[in-house]
């Protein structure tokens, strides 16, 4: 067993000090030390994507990263998605509306994958979304409704942005 070390993690905007073994993975720290159990573990070898979280805004596999590696970086988990009053955000609502989840085990991974992807490519086509959805595994849905949920959410976000731009333009005119 190796020496423990003190690290500082920023998760969902909150800073935590932890004393951990260097071999401790980010997903284990999130789940078992910080008790943020929304992030799940499906394979521990980076294929299934159930542990996907955002690292400085980009989706990563939390099972393939040591917690010590992300000191000082911004980590976001599924627990950060809902609004402060507990209501679900638009992406979460789209998953529910399209029945994009059944058992719900893979869902946090897909949510964080989509959240990261849509932030980077808000104009993504349905085909591009399907390609990105292929990063993670789901055993229940056959993926179609996950793709539809993300596509719907993206379309709504674009429409919302356009409406705000239009309103702004109207105001300035």
């Amino acid at each position, binding site marked *: 067993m190796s020496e423990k070390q003190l690290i500082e993690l920023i998760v969902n905007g909150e800073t935590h000090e932890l004393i951990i073994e260097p071999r401790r993975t980010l997903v284990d720290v999130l789940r078992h030390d910080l008790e943020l159990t929304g992030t799940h573990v499906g394979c521990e070898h980076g294929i299934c994507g159930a542990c996907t979280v955002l690292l400085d805004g980009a989706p990563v596999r939390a099972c393939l990263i040591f917690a010590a590696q992300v000191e000082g970086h911004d980590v976001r988990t599924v627990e950060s998605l809902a609004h402060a009053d507990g209501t679900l955000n638009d992406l979460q609502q789209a998953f*529910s509306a399209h029945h994009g989840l*059944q058992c719900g085990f893979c869902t946090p991974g897909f949510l964080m994958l989509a959240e990261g992807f849509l932030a980077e490519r808000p104009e993504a086509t349905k085909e591009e979304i399907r390609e990105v959805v292929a990063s993670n595994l789901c055993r*229940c849905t056959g993926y179609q409704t996950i793709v539809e949920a993300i596509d719907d959410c993206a379309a709504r976000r674009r429409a919302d942005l356009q409406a705000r731009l239009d309103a702004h333009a109207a105001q300035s005119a």
Partner: protein
Amino acid sequence: MSPHEPTFTPGGTWVGASVPRREDPRLLAGRGRFVDDIHLPGMLHAQFVRSTVAHGVITGIDLSAVREVPGVVAAFTAADLDLADITAVLDRPEPEFVPTDMPVLARDRVRYVGEPIAIVIARDPYGVEDGLEAAVVDYDVLPPIVTDTRALEPGAPLVHDNAPANTLLDVTMFATEGIDDVFGQAPCVVRVRTKTGRQNALPLETRGVVAEWDDRDEQLRVQTCTQVPHQVRTVLARCTGLDERSVRVLVPDMGGGFGQKCVVGREEIATAAAALRLRRPVKWIEDRKDALTAAFLAREQRYDVRAAFDADGRILAIDADVVCDMGAYSCYPFTAGIEPLMASAEMPGVYRLPAYRVRGRAVTTNKAPTAPYRGVSRPQYVMVVERLFEKAARALDMDPVEIRRRNLITVFPYTGINNITYDPGSYLESLNLCEQVLHDEGWYERKRELAGRDRVLGIGYACFSERTGYGSGAFAQRRMSVVPGFDISEVRMDTSGTLTVTTGTLSHGQSHETTMAQIVADRLGVDIARVKIQQGDTDRVTYGWGSFASRSITIGGSAVAAASVKLADVLREIAAHLLETHVENTELDGAGGVRLRDDHAKRLSFEELADVAYLRAHLLPKDVGPGLCATASFDVAGDGTFSNATHGVVVELHPGTGQVEILRYVCVEDCGVAIHPQVVEGQCRGGIAQGIAGVLFEQVGYDENGEPSCASFMDYKVPTAAEMPEIAIHHLETPCAFTESGAKGAGEGGTIGAPAAVLNAVNDALRVTGVELDDTPITPEAVLRALEPA
């Protein structure tokens, strides 16, 4: 329908409306509670020392170094824990069925790579892994039996000394008199020989358990992800010698099961026994490697089947030989007979078959044992039967859809050659609609057009029905000695007028918290927000059989409905008394109250009635006791109800890579009344995805030493969104006459139809080559070979 706006059916009922799922908010917020999310004070972590050989005698287990590893708290062998074996039996004499014992931990013999030998317990999951590395097990290696053909060879070494010819089940059924003459005289006889790959049901959440002894309750409290909590309790009590009262099994949120979790696992018993011994909470979470190699597998079967047809394409007889490679042990409670008995009993399926003979065998091999997996043998025998019809159509130069039409059961109820009575379905209608859809979408035209341009397209179908809702009678017919079937539900109303409803079924993705609440809401005339379904707690739920075999809505849903109706009667009786009228003059008002039939203004809300039932019981009618609670059970009389579907698939074969691309997938399904259409579609699509996975991608391989070749997702090819097609679903509705809601099961159908439809489409595409593929999964290599110019 816009998915954001749940629609309600014109009748204003909850049943039939795709309401938002009750499960969703917590699962989407990351606030579900799965077994690995449970942290108990002082909790220890367990893993298993597992066999590294497929077959051997254990000559020594040395755990002394394990116990020295920092962080390790204990390590136990079979001798240390002294648990009774898990033994699943059928009510059949030897040699029809040979019972075999599955020890919780291997004692002196190991029978597959990954078999648990010892449990190691440490303060954290990392320490357990350190501990495992220090374990020393010595074996005298025995020759492994890795294939079913080797298992059946005369003189082959025995996996179980008490199972001659490595055969755990051997039955010949039906054997219509004169069947050999039918084959002798028939103008057309076709034959299908096929082998299907060993698969992993692969719930994305692996198996796991947290167990602790509770001094206050004097109970072993076991939180485990299982589809069958009461069966785990029964086996755990038997293995440890505890009374069943002293075991409480609770099921947290569960990340899928698909059958792998509908049998009792050795590891969950061993972990609980270790917690009992240590008097400390112990958690075991299966890692993916163990889940891929040592968890219950399924589906490896070999068929040799002949069918006789007359010159007009009418089927005359089927003669089948089915061999299922069940691996090293019989699973509890179903036994190794589950797959061959399912195939043998149900194979005639949707067709009017005059003569039938089947031999079904379960052989034991040195591979991880098997459990029922979504569809249980039906994906395979449907594939075989559908291939027989395609082959006969070719031999007789008939249209493959037309030959099916001529043979489908169209008059119901229909009692088949297999002594099963089929309740009404839409066999012909679903086939006609499915064919129509593919025609209307222009796929036949497209296939013809592209054929001239070296594009290889094929169209394939699968027609099938699926018995859903096996009652005690149907399982008893299989001669199970532990007979599942009934379900019991209790509906309780509290002083707020809200409802708590128990069910012995166990949702793990199927949405029962929503769909069962819909059933209750309709029966009592309340908003579903006022109904909470309670499941997965053996102390709170009366003995039940969990969720498998598409039984939950048909049987569990019927029990829930029946209990609700009983409670409604009590509410009306109290209301009648308080309103000073006869109960016949009252009715539910559909808005959480009881009113007078002829004067709707005279009404008492459920809150008011509950207030009397609990807090002012002196006001109750004389013959009504205090409290508001009703219990009802439901069992299926007779042969159960059959859901049916036709799947139609268009594939394109890519000559460069051998890839099978699914261009179009159409499913026409009939599960009777759909409680929640969106959930039904979800079950269909998810099932189809697993069927496609089986026919095109997944296979657990073994080398000649019995070493499994799939220890990670690099080797076990689970399809992603890139491989899955869009799936169009059309609904037909033939209500079930005897379930309380008219619903039939919808859990497995997708998985059952997909392999046959895809395989038929691939063979349709290969028609020009003269090559036929019958084994699955269909590999790119096999397609490439088939496409090579002769």
